[in-house]
């Protein structure tokens, strides 16, 4: 039903239309000695939206985050956070970050790490609230070095929340976690979104972007390849797939409107098309013996591979 699809996509779009962005990369190029990490990238984050920056390793995701945190400055272009320089101390009180840290101080307790980070901010979240959101109950007094991988990531997530920031950057938040820990962190990220926070998330897990983000920005080699809602990104990758047993020949199927490919394998025919309904109707009319019909959207994974291939 098209009505549902519209409902799903409206909130983020309304917000985009109604408010000006709170964070922008304006035509930013970032070069290191020999490599170009970002190549004329523009990105705007609007209040309350969850944006996933999706791309393979080395696409420039972390560089974009570092620029928006004021940890690096652009070679060309402009970075603005809340209308000012990301390096200013006042801006930093409104921003939280979860970065890829190889080794956190292990000889401090969870409680002490949080206590220290809370002290940096003028209006920190209450300790108990941080513990609740990041689900650290019961491990507050454990040394960081004694935690499991998932617990460590949750503490890093908690540190990003300490200042009750309006804008949160999560750089590969679930990298290296098992599926259960990953799902747990997703739930916590959704809690943030529900509190009206703006979240920029980088990931190379497509499922993660699909399940969390209002908007996905696919980047590769420092440029935006594609941008849209998860549904739009899937649509851009070249339609849906019809699978069935049929006696119709490949040559005939290729003459049907908008069919881009037909593959037959072990008696099952797979047809890729933009207009699946039309094609199915035609096939059912011409082949009464048709059976085992399935119509599927491509996984975001396939869409992503199609988009970043070139």
């Amino acid at each position, binding site marked *: 039903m098209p009505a549902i699809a519209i409902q799903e996509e409206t909130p983020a779009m309304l917000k985009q239309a109604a408010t000006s962005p709170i964070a922008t990369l304006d035509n930013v190029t970032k070069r290191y000695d020999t490599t170009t990490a970002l190549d004329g990238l523009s990105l705007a984050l609007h209040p309350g939206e969850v944006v996933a920056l999706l791309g393979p390793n080395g696409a420039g995701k972390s560089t974009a985050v570092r620029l928006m945190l004021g940890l690096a400055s652009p070679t060309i272009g402009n970075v603005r956070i809340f209308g000012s320089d990301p390096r200013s101390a006042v801006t*930093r009180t*409104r921003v939280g*970050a979860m970065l890829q840290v190889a080794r956190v101080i292990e000889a401090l307790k969870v409680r002490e790490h949080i206590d*220290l980070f809370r002290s940096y901010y003028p209006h920190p979240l209450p300790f108990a609230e941080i513990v609740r959101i990041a689900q650290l109950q019961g491990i507050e007094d454990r040394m960081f070095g004694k935690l499991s991988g998932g617990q460590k990531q949750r503490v890093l997530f908690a540190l990003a929340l300490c200042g009750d920031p309006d804008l949160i950057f999560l750089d590969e938040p679930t990298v290296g976690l098992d599926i259960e820990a990953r799902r747990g962190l997703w739930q916590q990220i959704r809690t943030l979104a529900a509190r009206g926070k703006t979240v920029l998330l980088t990931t190379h897990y497509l499922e993660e972007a699909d399940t969390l983000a209002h908007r996905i920005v696919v980047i590769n080699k420092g440029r935006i390849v594609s941008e849209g809602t998860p549904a739009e990104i899937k649509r851009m990758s070249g339609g849906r797939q019809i699978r069935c047993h049929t006696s119709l020949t490949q040559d005939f199927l290729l003459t049907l409107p908008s069919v881009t490919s037909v593959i037959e394998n072990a008696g099952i025919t797979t047809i890729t098309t933009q207009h699946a309904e039309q094609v199915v109707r035609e096939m059912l009319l011409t082949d009464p013996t048709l059976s085992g019909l399935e119509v599927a959207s491509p996984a975001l994974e396939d869409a992503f591979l199609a988009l970043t291939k070139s």
Partner: protein
Amino acid sequence: MSTAAIPYPTTGLAHTLRIYGKETRYEFMKLLRTRSFSLSVIGFPVMFYLLFGIANRNSYGGVNVAKYALGGYACFGMIGAALFGIGVGLAAERAAGWLELKRASPMPVAAYLFAKCASAVAFGLIIVATLMVLAVALGGVSLTPTEILKMFGMTVVGGVSFASMGLLLAQLVPANAAPGIVNLIYLPMSFLSGLWVPIRFMPHSLQHFAPALPTYHLSQLVLAIFGYQDAMAASAHWTALAGFTMLMLGISWLIFHRREQNA
């Protein structure tokens, strides 16, 4: 709404002091709990002093050996705390990305550096206090209250001075090589400036080289508390130590600044 233009009130002095306090407290606790640091940085000067200082209870020409050695090993200890606590610690935190996460927060960088420096000084004070207790209890050394206070005062001076060298090393040295490289600098420098064996017992060529080392000037200022200094004027030692500290801080600042611009 005009109030929306000012999202947060300007933060006060109390808030800033609280950050400095917590940063320092947790840095010190971290170092104390990291046994590889706390045991070796306290243990080595104490062990060396017991072996080479207290075991030898003689006097040569009005110089009490155990008291003379107290000056040398006190310097050895405070310098070790500064070079390992800051040099190795900061290099590791920089390489692991931990420093970057902190810099993305509103933490003042000065609070981070202050905490590192103050913790190194605190370890220096612990080491020097331990050595003085051993000297009095086991070495038959007598210390006046003025001498004790001056020892603590010089520990602060030495700790801050060599913290600057730790800062520079942390910027230059790769984290995984830092402990080795710091030892390669720290141990020969300590030996050559007479922290272990009095300079006058060393070959003449080495004796002439000692004034080129900052450790020599620190040790002469410490030994002067007991009246055991060489002929050179105290002002020359102060100038040399201050110059060394400025040089280290200056180069560190240049490197930091260049990195920031290339970041």
